[in-house]
C-alpha cells in the first residue's frame, strides 16, 4: 500500500541515498598519525632524558687525566665504573650542556665494576632504573662519551648474560652488540622506555661488543653502597 502510494506520488519525494562522497585525499588517519606522533615523542623524550642524565667524568690522577662516562640517578648521585674513579686525586663531572660539577665523594662496589659518586651541585636530570634485566634481542642504546669526545648514542641489541670477560667478578655480565670505545666506561645502557638496564664497563677490542653490569647487580651494589659510603669515600683521594 505504502509502496503503491509512494509510487504514485513520484520518485522525487522518495529519499534518495546520499550521493557518493568525493574521494578524500589519501592522507593518513589523523588519529593514527597522532598516536604515532605521541609514541615517537615519548621515545624521543625518554632518550633525551637519558642523554641529559649522562655525565662525563674526569679523573685526575697522579700520572694522567682520564675520562669516563656516567649517569645520574638523582639530583646529587651518579653511577660510573669503579675503574674510572679509582686512583683519582680529583674528580670532576661535566654535564651534557657543559656545566662542571664538583664531586664530594664516591663509593666503589665490591660485587662489580661500579662506583657511586656524589656531587655538590644538582645534576640536570636523572634516569630511572629498569625493574629487571633485559631479554636477549631487546633493543638498547648506549649513551656516553667515547674517547672523551662529544656525547654519543650507540644503538644496539642485547645478546644475553655471559660470564665476566675480565674474570674479575663472579657476577654475570650483560653482552650488548653496540659500538663502544675507551671513555665509554660508565655509559648507561638504556632500553626503549628510557630506563637503565646496564652500565658499560668493558668492550671488545674490535669495538663491536660491549659488556655491561646488569641492572640487577647494580641494584644490589646501590643497596650495599648506602652502608659503606663513609668508609669508601676516602679511597678516591690517594696521595701522589
Amino acid at each position, binding site marked *: 500500500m505504502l509502496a503503491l502510494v509512494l509510487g504514485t506520488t513520484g520518485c522525487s519525494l522518495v529519499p534518495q541515498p546520499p550521493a557518493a562522497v568525493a574521494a578524500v585525499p589519501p592522507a593518513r588517519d589523523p588519529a593514527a598519525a597522532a598516536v604515532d606522533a605521541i609514541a615517537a615523542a615519548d621515545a624521543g623524550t625518554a632518550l633525551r632524558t637519558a642523554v641529559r642524565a649522562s655525565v662525563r667524568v674526569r679523573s685526575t690522577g697522579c700520572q694522567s687525566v682520564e675520562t669516563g662516562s656516567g649517569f645520574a640517578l638523582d639530583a646529587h648521585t651518579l653511577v660510573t665504573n669503579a675503574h674510572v674513579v679509582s686512583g683519582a686525586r680529583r674528580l670532576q663531572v661535566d654535564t*651534557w650542556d657543559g656545566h662542571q660539577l664538583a664531586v664530594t665523594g664516591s663509593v666503589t662496589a665490591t660485587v662489580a665494576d661500579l662506583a657511586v659518586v656524589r656531587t655538590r651541585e644538582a645534576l640536570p636530570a636523572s634516569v630511572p632504573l629498569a625493574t629487571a634485566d633485559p631479554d636477549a634481542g631487546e633493543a638498547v642504546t648506549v649513551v656516553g662519551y667515547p674517547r672523551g669526545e662529544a*656525547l654519543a648514542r650507540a644503538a644496539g641489541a642485547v645478546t644475553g648474560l655471559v660470564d665476566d670477560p675480565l674474570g674479575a667478578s663472579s657476577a654475570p655480565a650483560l653482552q650488548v652488540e653496540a659500538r663502544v670505545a675507551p671513555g665509554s666506561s660508565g655509559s648507561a645502557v638504556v632500553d626503549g622506555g628510557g630506563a637503565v638496564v646496564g652500565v658499560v664497563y668493558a668492550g671488545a677490542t674490535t669495538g663491536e661488543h660491549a659488556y655491561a653490569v646488569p641492572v640487577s647487580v647494580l641494584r644490589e651494589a646501590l643497596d650495599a653502597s648506602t652502608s659503606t659510603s663513609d668508609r669508601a669515600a676516602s679511597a678516591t683521594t690517594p696521595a701522589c
Partner: protein
Amino acid sequence: MAADERRGAERSAPAALLPAPRRAPDAAGGVVRPLLRERPRRRSRGTSAVVLLLLGAVVAALALSAHLWGAAQAWRSQAQDAEVQRDRLATTSVELQRHLDEVQAALDASDARVEQLAAEKARAADLREASSR
C-alpha cells in the same frame, strides 16, 4: 336504441379533457410497487468509509514521504558537514605535525650544538688539568 343515443351524445359533446375516473386498486392485481428504486443504505456507507480510508492512507503516505525526505536531507547535510570538518581537522593535524617536526629538528640541532660546545669546553678543561698537574 340506448346505444344509439349514447353515440349521439358523444359525437355532440365538445372535445374537452375530462378527469379520468379514479380507479381503485385492483384487488386482484396483488402488490403495490414504488415507482423509484430505493438505494441500499448500508452499502453506501461502506463505500464512503473505504474512500475515506484510502484518502487517509494517501495523506499519511505523503506525510511519511515528506518526513523521510526531510530526514534524509538532514542526514546528508550533516554527513557533508562532518566530512568537511574531518578534512579540516586532517589538514590542521598535518600542519601541526609538520610544525612539530620543524620545532623538533630545531631543538635537536640546538641540542647538538650545545653538546658540541660542551665537548669543546670539556676537552679544554682536560688540557688545563693535564697542564696544571
